[in-house]
C-alpha cells in the first residue's frame, strides 16, 4: 500500500529511527514482495539508465515533428564559452533538463520520473549534483527513494497525469520530488525534505497542460528547465531554514483540487492555450496522419 501522506513517511521514519529514504524502501519491499537488494539494484538500474541517457545525448537529433532537438547542445556551448549570470551548477542543471527532454522527444531511452514529459527534471538535478559534489552513487540512489516517496504521495492523493491535473501534476510533481531529493543530499532531514517539496510545488500550482499538436515537446521540454531550477532554488530556501506556511500535505491536496477545477480544455486536449495559437495550428496541420 502506497503512502498517502508525507506525514505517514515522516512519522514512520521518526518512530523507527530510520531515514526518510529507508521508509520508502521498506514500503517498496512489502508492496512488491522483494528483498532489500532487489529493490536497491532496481533503483541503481534507474540511476544508470538516466546517466547513460544523459551521456548519449546527441545534439544532431531532431524529433519526428522537427520541433525538438539541438537546444541542449546550444546550452552546453554557452556554458563552456561564456561567463554567465548563473554559476556552473545551475547552468548545467538547465542543460541536462533540456537534453533529457529532447532525447525523449527524439525516441531515445529515458526513465519516466514520474512521467515521460517530465523526465528531465530529477535527472538534471541529481546528475549535476553527482558531477559537482560527488556524494557517491549510494547517496544518489537514496535520494531517488526520497524523490519516489514524495512522488508516490502525490500520485496517490493528487495526480501525476497532465490529462487529469494539468502540467502542475507532471512538471510540478517532478519538481517537488527533485527538491526533496536535493534537500536530502544537502544534509536535510525530514523537515527540510518535505518543506523543500512544498515550497517548490507551491510555485507550480495551476500550471496547464496545453502542448502543441498534442506532442510532448512544446512547451514541455523547456518547462523541464523551470521544474529543475525551481527545485534547486527552493531546496536551498528549505536548507536555509525557510518553511512553508502551508503544511506540505495540504499543498498536495490543493494541487489535487486545482487540478480538478482546471477546465478540460487545458488538460492535454489541445483545445485551448498554447495549443490553439496560430503557430500551433500550422504545426498541427502539418503533422496529422490524415493522408492515410
Amino acid at each position, binding site marked *: 500500500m502506497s503512502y498517502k501522506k508525507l506525514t505517514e513517511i515522516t512519522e514512520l521514519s521518526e518512530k523507527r529511527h530510520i531515514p526518510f529514504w529507508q521508509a520508502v524502501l521498506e514500503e517498496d519491499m512489502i508492496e512488491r514482495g522483494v528483498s532489500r537488494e532487489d529493490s536497491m539494484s532496481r533503483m541503481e538500474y534507474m540511476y544508470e539508465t538516466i546517466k547513460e541517457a544523459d551521456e548519449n545525448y546527441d545534439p544532431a537529433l531532431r524529433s519526428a515533428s522537427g520541433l525538438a532537438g539541438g537546444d541542449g547542445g546550444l546550452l552546453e556551448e554557452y556554458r563552456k564559452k561564456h561567463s554567465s549570470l548563473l554559476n556552473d551548477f545551475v547552468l548545467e542543471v538547465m542543460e541536462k533538463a533540456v537534453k533529457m527532454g529532447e532525447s525523449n522527444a527524439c525516441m531515445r531511452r*529515458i526513465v519516466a520520473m514520474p512521467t515521460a514529459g517530465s523526465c528531465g527534471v530529477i535527472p538534471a538535478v541529481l546528475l549535476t549534483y553527482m558531477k559537482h559534489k560527488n556524494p557517491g552513487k549510494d547517496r544518489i540512489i537514496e535520494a531517488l527513494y526520497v524523490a519516489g516517496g514524495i*512522488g508516490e504521495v502525490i500520485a496517490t492523493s493528487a495526480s*501525476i497525469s497532465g490529462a487529469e491535473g494539468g502540467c502542475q501534476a507532471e512538471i510540478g510533481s517532478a519538481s517537488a520530488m527533485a527538491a526533496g531529493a536535493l534537500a536530502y543530499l544537502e544534509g536535510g532531514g525530514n523537515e527540510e525534505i518535505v518543506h523543500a517539496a512544498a515550497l517548490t510545488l507551491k510555485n507550480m500550482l495551476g500550471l496547464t497542460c496545453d502542448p502543441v499538436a498534442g506532442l*510532448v515537446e512544446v512547451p514541455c521540454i523547456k518547462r523541464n528547465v523551470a521544474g529543475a531550477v525551481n527545485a534547486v532554488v527552493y531546496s536551498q530556501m528549505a536548507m536555509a531554514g525557510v518553511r512553508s506556511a502551508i503544511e506540505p500535505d495540504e499543498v498536495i491536496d490543493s494541487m489535487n483540487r486545482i487540478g480538478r477545477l482546471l477546465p478540460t480544455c487545458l488538460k492535454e486536449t489541445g483545445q485551448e492555450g498554447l495549443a490553439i495559437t496560430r503557430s500551433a495550428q500550422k504545426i498541427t496541420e502539418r503533422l496529422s*496522419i490524415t493522408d492515410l
Partner: protein
Amino acid sequence: MNLFDIIGPVMVGPSSSHTAGAVKIGLAAGKLLGEKVVSAEILLYGSFLATGKGHGTDAALVAGLLGMKMDDENIPKSLEIAKERGLQIKFGKADLKDAHPNSVEMRLVGEHGRKLSIVGESIGGSLINIAKIDGLDANFSGDFPTLIIHNEDQPGHLAEVTGMLARSSINVATMQLYRASRGGEAVMVIECDQEVPEETLEWLQKADGITKVTYFSLKEPEETR
C-alpha cells in the same frame, strides 16, 4: 501503482500512452496471435490517428509486433526492421464507434495462416486494455496470463473450461463472459494467477463447441533488466 511506476518505467520516448503503451499493445497482439506475424493491417483511431506520427505511435505498434519491449532502442527503426523480416504492414484509419481516444485496430496474419483481429486501447501511463478480439468484447490488461475462448453459446462450455483449469491447478483471478447473440458466438475472457500449460490449451482447442482458443502468456518479462 508501486514505487517503480513513479521512478520508472524505463522506456523509449516520447509518450507513455502514445509510444510505450503502443509498444505494449503491439506486443500483446503478437503474443495473442501465437505465431510469427507476416502481415498486419494497422488501423488508427482518435488521438492515435491525429498525433500518432509525432509520437512515433506507428513505429511503436510495429516494434511490439516484432517482439520489442517498451525500452528497446530499436523502436524508432522498427518499420525498417519489419521490412527486412518480410513483415507486411499497411496503415489506415479505423472505423470504430465510441472507442477510447487512443485506440488501434490490428488485423494480423501469422506464418501458419492463423488470423486475429484486436482492438487495443492505451488508457494512460503505459497501461493498456485489449478491448476486442475478433470483433467480440474482451477487456483485459495483459497483467495476467489470459485465456480467451470463443465458443458456441450453449450450456456446459463454461463448466468444461473451468473444470479443466481446476484439474490443471490454475486459479481464476477474474472472468468475463460476452456473447454476440443468444445461442450464437460467445467469448470467455479468463485472467489466471498461473500460466496455462500447453497440454491444457491443446485439450481446450479440441473440446466440443469451442471454436477458438487464444492465449496471452506473461512468460517473457515486460521489462528487461
